[in-house]
Structures are given as C-alpha cells and as structure tokens.
C-alpha cells in the first residue's frame, strides 16, 4: 500500500524537482544578464522529465581506453538531462547571450507550471487521504 502511495506521487515529485532545478537555471541567467561572456543555459523540460522518469535511457557514457581520450558527456546535467546553451537571437558585443525577454517569459512560464504541478500533487494527496479515511 505504501508503495502505491509512493507511485501515485512519484510523477509530480519528479516534475516539481525538475521545475525547481530549471527555476534555478533561469534565475542564474537573469542574475548574469550583465556579465560579459556569460552564456544563457536551459534544459529541454520534456526530454528531461522522460529521462528522470526512466522512460528513456538518457545519455550513454563513453569508455576511454587511453589517457589521451576525452570522456564524452561530462557537461553539466540536471537529474541526468544535459544542460544546453541557448542560441543567441541578437548577439551582443560582450559575448553575453542572455535575452531578458526570453528569460523573463520562460521564468514566468516555469513558475506557473510549478504551481500547477503543486496543485496536482496536493490533489493527489487529498485523494489518498479520502481513500484512507473512507
């Protein structure tokens, strides 16, 4: 029974963790809007959630057979999903690729979806409580 409750809440828990991690990334982008050579970063939420739920294998590591080989896939990752750089729409002279319009829009979008996930998770908890209390 406890395992079933855990399963019922698993999806929303993973989604919330990913949303929180993405929130952190977007906050970093907004904080570094004036830092020279800073590159804006983000994750592809859909594929990140699939990877985190174990539906896909994620990225495969590479075996190195010599000390001169570069290990593949050592870039930054959030819960197994790679963190990617945003391509600049209007590149600036100081090498910074933060576009405040995109970042603000994504930030608001992410926080609303976080609250939606919270609501779904809360409703699931209520369902379980109703089932327990009869």
């Amino acid at each position, binding site marked *: 029974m406890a395992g079933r409750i855990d399963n019922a809440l698993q999806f929303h828990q993973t989604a919330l963790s990913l949303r929180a991690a993405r*929130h952190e990334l977007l906050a*970093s982008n907004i904080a*570094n809007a*004036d830092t020279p050579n800073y590159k804006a970063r983000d994750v592809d939420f859909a594929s990140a959630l699939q990877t985190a739920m174990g539906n896909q294998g994620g990225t495969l590591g590479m075996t190195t057979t010599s000390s001169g080989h570069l290990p593949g896939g050592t870039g930054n990752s959030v819960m197994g999903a790679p963190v990617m750089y945003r391509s600049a729409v209007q590149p600036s002279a100081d090498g910074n690729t933060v576009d405040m319009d995109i970042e603000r829009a994504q*930030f608001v979008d992410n926080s609303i979806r976080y*609250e939606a996930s919270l609501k779904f998770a809360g409703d699931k908890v209520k369902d379980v*409580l109703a089932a327990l209390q009869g």
Partner: protein
Amino acid sequence: MSLFNVFNISGSAMTAQSQRLNVVASNLANADSATGPDGKPYRSKQVVFAATPVGEAGNNTSVGVKVTSVAEANTPMRVVYDPKHPMADEQGYVTMPNVNVVDEMVNMISASRSYQNNVEVMNTSKAMLLKTLTIGQ
C-alpha cells in the same frame, strides 16, 4: 533544496548591481573634481562582473555574480581652457575627470533595471516556496 539557492543567486546579483550603482554615483559626484587626495584629477571607475558558482560544491547549475575588480577607465582626460582656474597650467588648460555623464546615466538606468529584475525573481521564488509549504492541506 534547490529553490533556496535562488535567494543566493539573486542576492549576489543584487549586491553586484548595487555596487555598480555606487560606482556610478561616485563618477557622477566627481564629474568635475579637478583634484583628489593624490593631487591628480578624478578618474572614472567601472565595475567588472564575473559569473561565480553559488551553493554547495559540485552544483554547477546555480551561477551568481560577483564584482571581481573596480577598474579605472583609460579614456583620455577632458582638457578645458580656463586660465583663472587654480589648477590651470602655464597655457591656461585644466585637466578634468574623464567621466562621461551620458554613459553614467545609461549605466545607472541599466543597473537599476537589473536590480529590479532580481527582486522580481526573489519574490516569485518566495511565493513558490510558500505555496510548496501548503502541499496536502
């Protein structure tokens, strides 16, 4: 909990932006200071921002800002002809600070807008955390 890290990220950005605003204020206040403690005219100053990781070690998704140095601008000094000025040389020219008031005003507006953006990020994160506390109620 990664959401708490946002306070560190935005906090570091707010500190950096307020330092930038401070430097702008110094530049504007000294736009006409023909002499300083060292006897030379005031030189315009600029902050240098750098991205810096915040939070626990190994966490590379949260990146804050820090001011690495306050650099002096190497633009040429403004030379004004004013023979009555006490700092004037034999030809009657006075060396004045290389503060560009227009640049400083633009810098000021940019710093203030970036500061406001980070306050907004902090408020949103706070609302999200408070909503998270009400889960299951």
